[in-house]
């Protein structure tokens, strides 16, 4: 099947408006006869549920957690971008569009990104109206901060808990519709397959995670908003339950999976401390507004610090290497995430890592505390303030901005980051790749949509900070409600879809068979054993830098782990009860397939772009020496994979990317 992105004709700034003016609408009386299933209740799924229900559709929403409020969007910290230009610093829709395409290393679809930038301002209006308590300045107007990869301040925030506040906003909009009966909420349910009738997505098979009951649910369209697949690495900043199962199931039933190798390794996470570690914790990118990243210049100091003979605060300015400021003077500590992560890896690989594992760099707030303290002393008319006074005043400001993050750090690491610099190291955080969708956010299965992090569309090969929240809410509140209506307009006479159809029976049998297999397998190794093994291969060979040999090995190794898993996995308990091990088994089984496709995609893409760094493709000389080298001639396309059984047999379909409004250039942050 040829990929048709269905991008409307016309100038980029008119596409979305023209599109909305010409789609088919469903009248309010008919919407009452149409059912929509939404899987996942994070920012994308939750906002879609609320808006679709307000429009009049009957929504059935599914979440594996005990409440929609717990989706992992809640953990997003730093902020949400919007082209409001409240700061008057030159921001505009075009500039947000441009920054996002450039930040994504020219591997995203222009029309989708422009639409995202266009609706971004509406999101802020909407959220304020919902009572989201964004940070404000003393005049009562909304405050902004800066994020990586841009030269304006366009990020709106609510302390270090912006994702939480936005999700609770979407949750409140859902609650209003749940109360009206327009959303039927299925908490503690997991989607285990999609049901396709006459070529269209018409329902799902779900497991009630409390009783173990397998349920059939029908609808006229199915929306997947189940998040990313970062947990394929075992260790990531994702929640423990975050999984790719919903996305992978639709892939196996015909939805193409795009650019799986585009993964974001976030530069500022708390370094790992031991083998028992279950997850990694992010320290918001917003910290790079005020924190300066460094390692010691001299190896003697590195060793002294590791042995505990010296403290980082003992080192003078001259003895420190602020490597981001050194290498990227224009953007400094605010380079995009992929660039910052690779730079940290480069220093640590060279031996300059500052903790016992050699995998940590410093994020230092001392200059910011002094700067804010001096400013406060001035404001408060304190003449000749002592250093201690300045520090005290400055610390208050830093605490007001990032207090919760500093507290989180202290609880985990047992060090006070006001007194000694934080230690950070890159960790898997977000997946730009995902289910392929067209301009309508529809997958290659008619009637099956994919939104938020689960799809591939807006961030190209690298996502800029504070853009995930923007995309999730844009898809759910403002894009999908239009595009899905155009499709559902054909369904006004369809009537209820029966769950007695043979297609439902067949899908249910597939699900039940797999569950029975796990319960009866009686192997010798736990699910986590396999998950950790997979994660290690992914991190070592498909991590921050990749090469042909490593990727080929990874494919073979993952296949071997998968085979061992199916022979030897052990799942205790029964299927008719709450059984977390059984849930994990299903998710890891899917990761074991996805991981191999991931490596295959990375192997095929013999260029470096964004978060995907191929060692064979780096600049060899000149001012950009060592930086990622893109190959636009051969790789300016989206790689969409069609499922054919074994991941190694997946078939590649290319969507060529056209750049009419932005010139393709090497991305420079120097």
């Amino acid at each position, binding site marked *: 099947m040829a990929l048709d992105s269905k991008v409307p004709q016309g100038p980029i700034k008119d596409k979305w408006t023209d599109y909305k003016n010409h789609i088919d609408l469903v009248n309010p009386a008919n919407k009452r006869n149409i059912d929509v299933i939404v899987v996942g209740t994070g920012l994308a799924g939750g906002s879609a549920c609320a808006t679709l229900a307000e429009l009049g559709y009957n929504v059935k929403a599914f979440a594996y957690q005990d409440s929609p409020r717990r989706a992992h969007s809640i953990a997003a910290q730093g902020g949400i971008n919007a082209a409001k230009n409240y700061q008057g610093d030159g921001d505009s829709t075009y500039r947000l569009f441009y920054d996002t395409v450039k930040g994504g290393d020219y591997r995203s679809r222009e029309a989708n990104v422009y639409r995202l930038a266009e609706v971004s301002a509406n999101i802020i209006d909407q959220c304020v109206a*919902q009572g989201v308590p964004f940070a404000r300045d003393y005049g009562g107007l909304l405050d902004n901060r800066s994020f990586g990869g841009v030269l304006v301040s366009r990020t709106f925030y609510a302390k270090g808990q912006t994702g939480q506040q936005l999700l609770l906003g979407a949750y409140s909009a859902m609650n209003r519709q749940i109360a009206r009966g327009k959303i039927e909420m299925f908490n503690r349910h997991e989607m285990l397959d999609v049901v396709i009738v006459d070529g269209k997505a018409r329902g799902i098979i779900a497991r009630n995670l409390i009783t173990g009951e397998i349920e059939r649910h029908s609808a006229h369209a199915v929306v997947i908003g189940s998040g990313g697949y970062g947990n394929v690495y075992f260790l990531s900043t994702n929640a423990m339950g975050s999984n790719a199962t919903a996305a992978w199931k639709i892939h196996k039933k015909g939805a193409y999976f795009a650019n799986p190798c585009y993964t974001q390794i976030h530069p500022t996470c708390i370094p790992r401390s031991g083998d028992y570690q279950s997850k990694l914790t992010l320290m918001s990118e917003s910290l790079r507004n005020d924190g300066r990243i460094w390692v010691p210049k001299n190896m003697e100091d590195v060793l002294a610090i590791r042995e505990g003979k010296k403290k980082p605060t003992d080192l003078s300015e001259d003895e420190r290497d602020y490597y981001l400021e050194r290498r990227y003077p224009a953007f400094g500590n605010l380079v995009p995430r992929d660039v910052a992560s690779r730079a940290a890896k480069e220093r640590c690989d060279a031996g300059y890592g500052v903790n016992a594992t050699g995998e940590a760099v410093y994020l230092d707030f001392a200059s910011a505390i002094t700067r804010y303290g001096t400013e406060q002393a001035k404001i408060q008319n304190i003449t000749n303030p002592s250093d201690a006074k300045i520090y005290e005043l400055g610390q208050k400001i830093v605490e007001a901005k990032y207090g919760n993050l500093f507290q989180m750090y202290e609880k985990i690491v047992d060090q006070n980051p006001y007194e000694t610099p934080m230690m950070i190291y890159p960790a898997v955080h977000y997946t730009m790749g995902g289910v392929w969708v067209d301009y309508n956010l529809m997958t290659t299965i008619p009637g099956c949509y994919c939104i938020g992090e689960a799809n591939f569309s807006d961030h190209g090969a690298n996502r800029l900070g504070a853009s995930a929240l923007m995309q999730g809410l844009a898809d759910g509140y403002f894009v999908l409600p239009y595009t899905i209506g155009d499709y559902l307009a054909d369904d006004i006479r369809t009537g209820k879809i029966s769950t007695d159809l043979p297609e439902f029976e067949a899908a249910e049998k597939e699900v039940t068979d797999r569950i029975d297999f796990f319960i009866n397998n009686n192997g010798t190794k736990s699910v986590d054993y396999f998950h950790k093994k997979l994660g290690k291969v992914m991190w070592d060979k498909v991590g921050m830098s990749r090469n042909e040999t490593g990727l080929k090995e990874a494919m073979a190794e993952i296949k071997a782990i998968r085979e061992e898993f199916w022979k030897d996995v052990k799942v205790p308990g029964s299927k008719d009860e709450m059984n977390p091990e059984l849930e994990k088994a299903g998710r890891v089984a899917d990761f074991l397939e996805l991981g191999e496709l991931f490596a295959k995609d990375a192997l095929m893409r013999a260029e470096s772009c964004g978060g995907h760094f191929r060692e064979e493709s780096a600049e060899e000389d000149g001012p950009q020496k060592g930086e990622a080298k893109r190959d636009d001639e051969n790789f300016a396309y989206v790689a969409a994979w069609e499922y054919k059984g074994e991941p190694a047999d997946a078939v590649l379909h290319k969507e060529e990317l056209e750049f009419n409004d932005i010139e393709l250039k090497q991305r420079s942050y120097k």
Partner: protein
Amino acid sequence: MNLTLKIWRQKDTSSKGQMVDYKVTEISEHMSFLEMMDVLNEQLVNSGEEPVAFDHDCREGICGMCSMYINGEAHGPDRGITTCQLHMRMFNDGDTITIEPFRAAAFPVIKDLVVDRTSFDRIQHAGGYISVNTSGNTQDANAIPISKHAADEAMDAATCIGCGACVATCKNSSAMLFVGAKVSQYALLPQGQVEAADRVQNMVAQMDLEGFGNCTNTGACEVECPKGISLDNIARMNRELMKASI
């Protein structure tokens, strides 16, 4: 360190539960409490026993899913944290740790340490929102200035993660801190004024219906709240309720 764990095991809502003893060895002080539970569960799986079911997800203190009652305290001995942020350095070698589910009539046990907190959701359905459609055709976000003080206070209230530690800690199993926080967030913002009276009345009515107890101003909830939600919010809710009834 080596530890003895006394853990509440209960097959399902209708079964009778009991405390069961387990031993774990070589626990690092840098582990989180839940990582220690992972070690126990891995041990149980490998020996053919059923692992202990417990709720957890983000493991960074924000989703509100984890919910254990450890040595008689919701989220354990540390302050300002959830169970997933509790670290083993708070314990000593040889300790015996008692681990129970959050207990309240309105939080029935589902299995082992997992409880049903959907009563919190139902209170939110009763009024925890502003009735504005998500069309995006609202006024500009800066059209209504909100004082920094009010915005900050609303944020402090809104930071509640809905974990239920307040209820589990309260001798009356009262949900007033949880409800007070939501009522306060909206009461402090101009956007929340239009429906203020209905909101507080409906949410309080639902809270009572769910079987949560009343507040007797002990203040234990504030102490155990991982997000430090202030008792002021209960006072504000009472004031709002009073205002609404006049």
